[in-house]
């Protein structure tokens, strides 16, 4: 338990020392997306009978919780390849599970911070949603899955440069195609099948339905739960790969 706490606390202290810079950086992308797609391009658009802005914001929440959750891989890479702090964890009497859970939870914390910033900005823009438990369940599960993926990729890669490949080929396409900026139902049926296989698609649907006050989307919840368990198992087994 103390091992898990140590790993988590380290990440939290890093966030704490960087908080002003971090909050500022968290607010840049959503603000730009809101200005460009929400207020600019989508000002007169409607999706499913709602203003495009109401469609876009839950999508941004899903995309942001994904990128910030996955972003823990950058911290791990710095700790592993630059600061070598990861060796301190390897030499400590803690289990792989304690390490993995500490890192994943810090990814979830980062995601919650970034989502809070988005919600703050959107509330200033006069858009309101339902932020019940279903909404936060969606955010946390999505962040958990991608933080687990971030830990796994950080353990498996051999250099910091390799990490950019994972981000460029998996995370960035998913951020655009996972039902965040447009309804995937607009795509051809064959493409829809692929897009429905993306975790972010289900997270975006779950978060959007919850934000509209329409309750928990159970189908997506079950899929995300299974993916979270799979992510945890993958991350757990990846830790030993980092030993040479």
């Amino acid at each position: 338990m103390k091992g898990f706490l140590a790993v988590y606390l380290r990440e939290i202290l890093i966030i704490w020392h960087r908080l002003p810079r971090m909050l500022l950086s968290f607010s840049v992308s959503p603000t730009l997306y809101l200005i460009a797609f929400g207020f600019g391009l989508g000002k007169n658009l409607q999706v499913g009978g709602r203003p495009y802005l109401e469609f876009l914001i839950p999508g941004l929440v899903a995309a942001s919780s994904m990128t910030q959750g996955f972003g823990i891989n950058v911290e791990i890479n710095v700790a592993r390849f630059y600061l070598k702090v990861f060796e301190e964890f390897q030499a400590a009497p803690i289990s792989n599970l304690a390490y993995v859970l500490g890192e994943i939870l810090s990814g979830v914390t980062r995601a919650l911070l970034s989502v809070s910033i988005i919600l703050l900005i959107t509330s200033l823009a006069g858009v309101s949603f339902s932020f019940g438990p279903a909404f936060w369940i969606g955010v946390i599960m999505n962040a958990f899955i991608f933080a687990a993926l971030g830990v796994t990729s950080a353990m498996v890669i051999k250099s910091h440069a390799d990490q950019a490949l994972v981000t460029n080929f998996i995370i960035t396409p998913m951020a655009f195609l996972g039902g965040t900026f447009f309804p995937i139902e607009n795509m051809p049926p064959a493409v829809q099948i692929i897009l429905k296989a993306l975790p972010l698609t289900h997270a975006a649907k779950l978060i959007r339905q919850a934000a509209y006050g329409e309750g928990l989307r159970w189908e997506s919840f079950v899929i995300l739960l299974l993916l979270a368990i799979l992510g945890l198992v993958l991350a757990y087994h990846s830790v030993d790969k980092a030993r040479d």
Partner: protein
Amino acid sequence: MDAVRVENLVKRYGKIEALRGINFRITPGELFALLGPNGAGKTTTIRILCGLTRPTAGKAYFYGVDVFQRPVAAKKMAGLVPQTINLDLELTVFENLLIHGLLFGLSKNEISQQGRQLLRFAELLERKNHKVRTLSGGMRRRLLIIRALLHRPRILFLDEPTVGLDPHIRRRLWGLIKRIQQQGTTILLTTHYIEEAEFLADRVAFLDEGRFITEDTPQALIARLGEFAVDVVREKGLETKYFPNREEAEKFALTLAEKAETVTIRRVNLEDAFVYFTGRKV
């Protein structure tokens, strides 16, 4: 019971053999030094014993506990000071100790008390709330050492602890290491500084190309060659001969007076022993 026992330890990276079956024992409270050139296998040995690298074959025990079968129990007994400074630069001195203490299961109270003592011991108490980024290289090294001592390890692994430091800081660290040993901690030290091993170690092992060449006390290794050495500089290079006493060394030197460019008589040191036994410079 041995503090550390290593049996036939092998590490291969593909076709490269980093360790070719090394064996050694360290008794409790002893400071044992692995001396060898870069790539000899010193760091690999420590990395394997501390759980950072997987061994290809072999066994290791800390006070009878199998290091590879019971890694958590073994790691609790060990403290590692790695060659590369792996402190969190963005965190404060105390926060670095806090994280380490929690990793080793200490309570916040224990961390505070023990941390304070160690910071005073290493003359870093005034820097407790400063970010590590603001510390000098020597201060970072001292922090690295006391961090490894925070959980009171029975065995301390020091991997090139003074590499790249100024001579006066290096000597200050030697004093710190001696005091740690005097408190009963068993120490495995790797270094390629001969004088460091000679000053600190109770026993020294010469390691080269993944093999143990020989091991003994520094005095015994030196005594195997003699007491005095004669360095003879000729056109083809430096040649050194060893003699049991000064008289014989001087007698030999006189026979060379006209044939050599420079002849120097001096005491035999550990570097002579290393060069003699391994056939190469550290």
